[in-house]
């Protein structure tokens, strides 16, 4: 019932509430009215009949006392002739019926008053309180001189009362019905004030949820709570609409993000792979060729490092724009991340076309860029692979292109390279070596060899250079030129470089404790390692740890390593210099040293590159360079060391030019520590002999 009510329409609910309320109020009012009427009537009749009983009692007391029924009957008859009296009796104090009066039409069998009625009270009424019963009685004791002699009992005629009551009930029912009808029609009209706007709102809501049309609105008809509800609803719809729009834009944006590169607007890897796989599918059916080209900017990292990421990003955008102008509409240029771009050339008739495109790209990229008013130059290396010749799957092609690109970089950069099978083998070897390298450090497989440097004048040892060697358990001795570039690529150069410094210092310490004469030991430090923020601290720590004097440690940096970001290099060099560490420049003459910068470096020695020394006796140009370097070193007050001296002729030339120190096979190749220790002993003996 109650659940049913809850589920009915708002209109029915409102009407039910109004009708119930008015019904209850009307019923209560009518009931109160009738009850009050009955009570009044009852009281009136009770009072009236009590006084009547009093009169009867007074007028018949003597008759009772003198047992004169006739006189009593006369008195009773005359006084009881009242339409309100249905029956009256006088009862003696013993409860015996004395006289009785019955109104015309009274049914004696239904009259219950009689001899048995002798209540203890002096006067009162009995029977149904609300007067509907025919058994209502009123009695009054007859008292003479304080003595109870009998009782008057009157049964009122309730007929009129009942009739009146019935009439009341009829009128009340009619009024109730009329009022209810009026309430019904009024509520029907009035409830619409509330239910109609709500129903309209509900309708709109239903429509919105069914049609998902958030542009619908409900008309506001009033300024009450319903009005604000409608306002709120409409606002909510507006909000939903706006959010929908925002969501759509967001989704578009995500779509873009998912398939396009944020910076350059080029397709990203995902979209590129998708297009590539489609192109492969079509090319397969049409027996056409597809070229996949990897283009990687050379030394882009340096631009990021020196000019900042902002400039780097702007440059990437320019590169992307240039790439797009070069290729055909059907080609796809994508950015794979970082400074790596891929180009898809579908429907290729001849692989040679790909090399034309590559050439064009490399040439175009190497032209000057204007970024924030600065001229920037950059080159790129490209790797090309051809479907279906080199590979048939997307993954294979991408890998091949990457391998080819890597080879191009190794081949001096700013070139492009087609993929070949051998590359793959090489690549595998490289990867293998890379993995081994990692383990080598963990397993402590590296060793240091030492090559002494000789004072040309007396042929005594002045210092030595520590050179790393990797005695591979399977592949044999691996020279640094094979694994150092790999270590630089993977970042392993940092722990390896650290290991070199520590191992050299430990060796110095060992010699020291063995009582051997001490010479400075030079270690090679890669540019990557040197540019690490905490390089000076690392060196200091190692020196403290091993207890080696800084004066016994020499740091060798290549010429190319110090010529980038000169200011910060100078800063670090000064720090090292202040510690007392010797600093020398390796491979001098091969880089593009700015001679004006050179004087700013706090360096101790220059090492003439072995390529000049090797040709110095045969080639006049090289000889001129050697002479120039030596004389420049002299004038700058720098020590000069010749590397790779293999013949006496070379030595003679150097000696003639005033070069004091040399290093090379002529005197000694790099030796393991124990062999070198032997050499140190020989050297000491020679010195002693000389002195003698």
């Amino acid at each position, binding site marked *: 019932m109650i659940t049913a009510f809850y589920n009915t329409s708002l209109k029915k609910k409102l009407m039910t509430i109004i009708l119930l309320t008015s019904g209850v109020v009307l019923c209560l009012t009518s009931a109160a009215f009738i009850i009050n009427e009955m009570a009044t009537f009852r009281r009136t009749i009770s009072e009236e009949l009590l006084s009547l009983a009093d009169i009867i009692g007074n007028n018949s007391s003597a*008759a009772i006392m*003198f047992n004169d029924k006739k006189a009593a009957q006369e008195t009773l008859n005359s006084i009881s002739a009242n339409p309100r009296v249905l029956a009256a009796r006088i009862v003696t104090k013993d*409860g015996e019926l004395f006289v009785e009066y019955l109104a015309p039409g009274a049914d004696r069998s239904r009259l219950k008053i009689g*001899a048995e*009625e002798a209540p203890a009270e002096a006067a009162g009424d009995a029977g149904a309180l609300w007067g509907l019963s025919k058994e209502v009685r009123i009695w009054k004791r007859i008292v003479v001189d304080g003595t109870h002699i009998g009782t008057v009992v009157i049964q009122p005629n309730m007929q009129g009362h009942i009739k009146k009551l019935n009439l009341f009930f009829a009128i009340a029912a009619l009024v109730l019905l009329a009022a209810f009808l009026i309430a019904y029609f009024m509520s029907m009209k009035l409830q619409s004030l509330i239910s109609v706007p709500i129903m309209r709102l509900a309708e709109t809501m239903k429509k919105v949820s069914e049609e998902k049309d958030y542009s619908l609105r409900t008309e506001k008809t009033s300024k009450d709570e319903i009005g604000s509800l409608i306002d709120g609803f409409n606002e909510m719809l507006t909000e939903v609409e706006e959010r929908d729009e925002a969501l759509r834009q967001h989704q578009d944006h995500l779509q873009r993000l998912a398939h396009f590169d944020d910076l350059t607007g080029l397709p990203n890897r995902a979209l590129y792979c998708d297009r590539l796989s489609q192109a492969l599918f079509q090319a397969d059916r049409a027996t056409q060729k597809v070229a996949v080209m990897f283009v990687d900017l050379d030394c882009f990292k340096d631009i990021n490092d020196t000019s900042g990421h902002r400039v780097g990003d702007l440059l990437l955008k320019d590169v992307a724009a240039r790439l797009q102008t070069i290729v055909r509409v059907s080609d796809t240029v994508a950015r794979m991340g970082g400074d790596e771009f891929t180009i898809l050339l579908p429907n290729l008739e001849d692989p040679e076309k790909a090399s034309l495109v590559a050439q064009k790209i490399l040439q175009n990229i190497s032209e000057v860029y204007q970024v924030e008013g600065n001229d920037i130059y950059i080159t790129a290396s490209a790797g090309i692979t051809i479907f279906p010749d080199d590979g048939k799957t997307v993954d294979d092609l991408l890998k091949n292109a990457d391998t080819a690109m890597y080879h191009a970089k190794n081949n001096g950069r700013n070139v492009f390279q087609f993929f070949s099978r051998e590359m793959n083998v090489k690549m595998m070897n490289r990867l293998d070596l890379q993995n081994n390298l990692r383990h080598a450090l963990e397993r402590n497989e590296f060793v240091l060899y030492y090559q002494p440097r000789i004072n040309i004048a007396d042929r005594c040892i002045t210092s030595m250079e520590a050179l790393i060697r990797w005695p591979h358990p399977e592949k044999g001795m691996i020279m640094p030129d094979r694994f150092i570039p790999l270590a630089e690529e993977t970042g392993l150069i940092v722990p390896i470089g650290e290991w070199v410094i520590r191992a050299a210092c430990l060796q110095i310490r060992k010699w020291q404790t063995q009582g051997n004469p001490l010479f400075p030991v030079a270690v090679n430090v890669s540019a990557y390692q040197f540019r690490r923020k905490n390089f000076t601290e690392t060196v200091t720590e190692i020196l403290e740890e091993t207890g080696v004097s800084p004066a016994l440690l020499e740091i060798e940096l290549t010429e190319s390593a110090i010529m980038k970001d000169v200011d910060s290099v100078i800063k670090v060099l000064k720090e090292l210099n202040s510690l007392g560490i010797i600093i020398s420049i390796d491979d001098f003459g091969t880089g593009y040293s700015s001679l004006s910068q050179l004087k700013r470096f706090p360096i101790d020695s220059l090492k003439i590159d072995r390529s000049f020394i090797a040709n110095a006796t045969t080639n006049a140009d090289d000889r001129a360079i050697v002479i120039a370097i030596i004389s420049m070193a002299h004038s700058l007050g720098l020590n000069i060391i010749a590397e790779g001296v293999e013949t006496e002729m070379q030595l003679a030339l150097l000696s003639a030019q005033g070069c004091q120190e040399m290093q090379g096979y002529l005197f000694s190749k790099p030796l393991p520590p124990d062999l070198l220790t032997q050499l140190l002993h020989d050297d000491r003996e020679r010195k002693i002999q000389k002195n003698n």
Partner: protein
Amino acid sequence: MDFQTTRIIYNHCKIVILTLVALLSAVPWNLFAEDSASREYKVKAAFLYNFTLFVEWPTETFPANDSPLTICILGKSPFGDALGSLRGKTVKTRKLAVRQINSVQEMRGCQVLFVSASEKMQLPNILAAVKNLNVLTVSDLDRFAEAGGIINFITLEDKVRFEVNLKAAQQARLKISSQLLKLARDVIE
């Protein structure tokens, strides 16, 4: 149980008890059934008392406020022990006293004088003697009222009734209630 139900049960119980009482004490209202003389005078004794309730004496009749109201029986009393039932009764605030007297000279202090049949011959003297006294004279002698007595018992249809001589009562300066007069079979003016 509501009030009405209680009331109904109470009434029913009362009816049963009263019926039992009525059955147990069922005495036929027949004056001459057993001891007719004694029964008749029992009623008359009661009537004597009843009369005092419906008659007003002048205040000076009583010597004091608490003086008793005295009923005097003149001559040979026909009441037997019937008057005993009046003992201890009061009339308004006064105590009721009953006295036996043998001559009219002894009637000082009497407010009601019952003249017994034995005094039939002395009646004129008696009436003359009380004429100006505030005394209610009662008798069952024939024509007592006509003779100048105030209340005269008569017997009608085996029932004790009475006649009132209003003139005599007025002469005795007694006020007789209209109720009593209404019951009188005859009122002599």
